């Protein structure tokens, strides 16, 4: 809808030639210098603004025109529309060194706000922030002329300290501290009067406005806050709202150490014990320096907000604001406690009650995070046991609110921000990884980046195996969560007990079916359960395959390969021998127990096979230790078709590492057993299959089988004649019509070449042994490069020597 119209205008703007822009500028200058610039001037300015804003590269505006803009902007009678447009153009061309605006003389608050924003967008942010800050403070200090409002100043001040936090001096911050106390604590509790608009709603007699109310309609019980309602607001009430809105930033910038007076330390004992009521008027607080006084009042304000959030708001937007206020109040209290630890005890009691109140209410879940953060920051000071808070957070919330994208994001950021503390001190964090991954399964695109940081922290020797299974089942988890949600929102009739004898026809039915219920429960568990075996998920995995094409499941599946990669990279750093062996076994076992989603399976196989390589390189002797399982795996012909990637690497690993030089326990019997198994496989796929006109296997598998057999033979030399015989039959295989029709010329050629090279090599057994079974040290150096390149190169070299014949001396 918008794209087409906007695009053509934007293109026109970008393609506007400099002369056109100059002409527009000249026209605008003329119009602006008239006594009352009107709609035509505005129109002209809009076009100029569009041209300047739409172009990435700098658009040169005439110096004189810039001057006109500046002057027009500052004219007292400038129509607001023109002012906005002039300011926007000046801002859009920033940062620039052409502007000669200054805020030193400006008295009018709205103009100061406009000019201030332009100045802060310039290149010299320190100087600008200082100047603007200084001016704002000056105006705040003095008495405002009639009709001027301070409302325009606070947000500008907020921008100043954001752009450059150190821009204010101590005196200046004290001015603000004092004013903030007034605005936050002593705003009027009477409603404001409607501004006389004259005309339609003219009131012949102004009613006395009543007091402000709470969000539930009752009369306000204490001082004015952002949760106080009134039909109209007075100036100081606006300032109260704005002051609170910037309070957190102000305290972070200027509330801490640096400018504190030495006597504040002595006060801490007194202040800590006495203040329990929110608006206890304390004469002692008046003696506090401005910064500490603001701290006290800010704390009272937050306490009041916490109380006010307990009321039931009449209007939904107010209810939402209550939650946002709660989050802000707790965060500010946390900051205050960090700046003055005497507040910790008061805060603790307040937050404990609050936590008790909201922990059962899912609508307030997001507010649990700053509370937990507070306990993390301060429970040591208070020597309080806050484990219950974290336990509740990690076990209940993810399970119930994984589907809320905002909560999911904030929860995971909370984890990321406190990773060090969690992994060191709280086992509940690691134990809850099945729960945490629910966030990822449901909200994959927005959280995958976060989980790249989280996964290494959650991964440990105790959680590794279970986590590997969980990662491979992540799309299942997404599907199961979907079923869980749909089941929860299904009507009672749909949820009626199903017949246990009949097989469920849909995932929804299966969720309640006794056959599948425990599998669902396992998949949707909230804590790590290392004892349980994931094999029982196989039927559920199959059932959930019916929703494999759902976009959410597909998006989730796309994150798995990169997570697996990260998993193995991390595990390789700490895994000991038994764990590595276990990982390889899981890898082999799961390679055909994957969720039925074709692209997913292909990607996972690719990662698993490359990781198998990694693990074997790390621990070559695992080939000997796991020879039984590897034998079984490599001897199953179905594996060639279903998981060619994995099979290829398994065979390669057998050929490479099944040797005495990698593990003294390797016996000739083992080598022979492997030989026989692999020989049978090669026979199957080269002799039997073509005859039965089954689909031929890829050339790569054949090559790796041939090579592996040759390697094994070079170590158990009785086998050499058998291999040589086999290799000689490769020509017939390649020339067979069934094979020739499927393989490309190049593929056939490569198989033959490889067979020839191997045969040549076997004619010199000791050379073969050296080339095909390098000692561990040599292999170590070799493994830095791509192993696949090294061996063929070596073989080619030997082969060439063989074929040249003369002059070559066998080793």
């Amino acid at each position, binding site marked *: *809808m*918008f*794209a*087409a119209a*906007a695009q053509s*205008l*934007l293109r026109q703007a970008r393609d506007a030639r400099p002369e056109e822009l100059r002409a527009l500028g000249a026209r605008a200058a003329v119009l602006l210098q008239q006594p009352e610039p009107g709609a035509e001037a505005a129109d002209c*300015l*809009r*076009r100029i*603004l*569009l041209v300047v*804003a739409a172009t*990435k*590269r*700098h658009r040169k505006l005439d110096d004189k025109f810039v001057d006109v803009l500046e002057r027009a902007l500052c004219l007292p009678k400038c129509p607001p*529309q023109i002012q*906005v447009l002039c*300011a*926007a153009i000046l801002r859009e061309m920033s*940062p*620039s*060194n052409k502007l000669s605006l200054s805020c030193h003389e400006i008295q009018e608050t709205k103009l100061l*706000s406009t000019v201030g924003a332009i100045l802060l967008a310039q*290149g*010299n*942010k*320190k100087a600008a922030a200082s100047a603007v800050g200084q001016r704002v403070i000056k105006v705040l200090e003095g008495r405002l002329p009639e009709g001027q409002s301070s409302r*325009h100043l*606070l*947000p*500008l001040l*907020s*921008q100043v300290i*954001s*752009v450059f936090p150190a821009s204010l001096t101590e005196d200046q911050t004290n001015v603000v501290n004092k004013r903030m106390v007034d605005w936050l604590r002593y705003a009027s509790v009477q409603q404001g009067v409607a501004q006389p608009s004259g005309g339609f709603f003219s009131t012949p007699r102004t009613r006395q406005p009543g007091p402000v109310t709470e969000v539930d309609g009752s009369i306000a019980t204490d001082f004015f806050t*952002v949760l*106080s*309602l009134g*039909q*109209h*607001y007075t100036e100081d009430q606006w300032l109260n709202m*704005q002051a609170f*809105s910037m309070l957190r*930033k102000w305290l972070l910038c200027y509330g801490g150490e640096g400018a504190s007076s030495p006597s504040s330390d002595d006060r801490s004992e007194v202040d800590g014990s006495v203040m329990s009521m929110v608006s206890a008027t304390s004469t002692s607080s008046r003696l506090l320096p401005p910064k500490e006084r603001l701290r006290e009042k800010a704390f009272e304000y937050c306490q009041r907000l916490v109380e006010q959030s307990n009321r039931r708001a009449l209007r939904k*937007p107010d209810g*939402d*604001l209550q*939650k*946002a*206020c709660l*989050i*802000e109040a707790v965060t500010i209290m946390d900051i205050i406690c960090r700046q003055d630890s005497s507040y910790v005890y008061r805060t603790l009691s307040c937050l404990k009650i609050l936590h008790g109140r909201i922990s059962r209410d899912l609508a307030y879940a997001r507010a649990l995070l700053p509370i937990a953060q507070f306990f993390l920051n301060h429970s040591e000071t208070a020597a309080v046991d806050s484990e219950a808070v974290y336990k509740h957070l990690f076990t209940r919330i993810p399970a119930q609110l994984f589907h809320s994208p*905002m909560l999911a*994001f904030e929860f995971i950021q909370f984890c990321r921000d406190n990773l060090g503390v969690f992994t060191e001190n709280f086992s509940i964090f690691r134990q809850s990884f099945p729960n945490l991954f629910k966030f990822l399964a449901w909200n994959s*695109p*927005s959280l995958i980046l*976060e989980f790249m940081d989280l996964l290494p922290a959650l991964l440990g020797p105790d959680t590794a195996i279970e986590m590997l299974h969980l990662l491979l089942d992540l799309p299942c988890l997404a599907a199961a969560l979907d079923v869980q949600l749909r089941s929860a929102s299904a009507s009672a009739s749909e949820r009626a007990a199903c017949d246990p004898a009949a097989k469920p026809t849909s995932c929804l039915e299966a969720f309640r079916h006794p056959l599948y219920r425990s599998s669902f429960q396992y998949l949707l568990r909230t804590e790590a359960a290392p004892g349980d075996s994931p094999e029982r998920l196989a039927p559920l995995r199959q059932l959930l395959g019916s929703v494999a094409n759902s*976009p959410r499941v597909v*998006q989730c599946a796309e994150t798995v390969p990169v997570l697996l990669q990260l998993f193995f990279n991390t595990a390789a750093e700490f895994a000991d021998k038994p764990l590595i062996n276990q990982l390889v076994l899981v890898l082999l076992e799961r390679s055909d127990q994957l969720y039925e989603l074709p692209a997913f399976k292909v990607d996972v196989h690719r990662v698993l096979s490359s990781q198998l390589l990694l693990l074997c390189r790390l621990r070559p002797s695992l080939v000997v230790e796991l020879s039984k399982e590897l034998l079984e795996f490599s001897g199953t012909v179905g594996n060639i078709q279903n998981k060619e990637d994995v099979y290829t690497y398994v065979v390669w690993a057998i050929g490479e590492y099944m040797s005495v030089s990698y593990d003294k326990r390797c016996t000739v019997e083992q080598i022979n057993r492997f030989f026989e198994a692999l020989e049978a496989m090669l026979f199957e796929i080269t002799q039997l299959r073509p005859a039965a006109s089954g689909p031929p296997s890829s050339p790569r598998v054949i090559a790796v089988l041939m090579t592996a057999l040759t390697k094994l033979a070079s170590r158990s030399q009785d086998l050499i004649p058998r291999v040589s015989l086999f290799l000689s039959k490769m020509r017939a295989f390649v020339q067979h019509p069934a094979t020739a029709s499927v393989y490309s010329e190049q593929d056939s050629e490569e198989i033959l070449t490889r067979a020839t090279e191997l045969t040549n090599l076997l004619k010199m057994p000791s050379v073969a042994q050296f080339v095909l079974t390098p000692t561990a040290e040599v292999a170590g150096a070799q493994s830095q490069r791509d192993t696949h390149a090294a061996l063929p190169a070596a073989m080619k070299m030997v082969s060439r020597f063989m074929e040249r014949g003369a002059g070559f001396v066998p080793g």
Partner: protein
Amino acid sequence: MVHAFLLHTLSPRPGDAAGPGRLLYSRVFGSERPDAAPEPPGLQELERERLGQKERMLVVARQVDTMCKLQQQVSGRPAADVILQLPDEPVSLQDAPAGLFRLPAGDPFGDRKTVLWLGVLSLGFVLVCDPHENLMLAESTLRLLARYLLDHLRLLGPGNDIVLKADKTEVILNKVLPHGQLLFLNDQFVQALERELSATLPK
């Protein structure tokens, strides 16, 4: 503080004739110059800064575009421009796709940022927030902004030239998000703002 506000079109489908999303409006409140950079900067450096700013906005818009598409896929709602809406029907923002994601430090902003986005009728409304911002408040502010912009800019009307109404956008932004400051506005404050807006904005 909110670092920036953006308004851009969402491309309905990849490879669509309408092309990729276009940046319709952007406003940066924060400064991206590192504190240590020398002042005053030279002319070339200024131009580079401005160019960098624009490009960063485009990067954000593109990412929001992707996220919005991914979320729409998942929610099963049809692509935005297929919806034919009656101009008088109030647009429901409740069900509009929305989300949050993080931009790590250096990519593209110097410091880490959080992006909050809302997709309504093939338009993306975006707030780029500093870390540890009150995201709940940011969300309600963004929805408020979207509502006002949709109303006052008559985005549902035909022949819309939204890019030529930047001054209205500025006025609304100055009221709801002055200088990038999120405001704790209860319903009454919101109504007061609406009254002020109606008085200021020409019809």
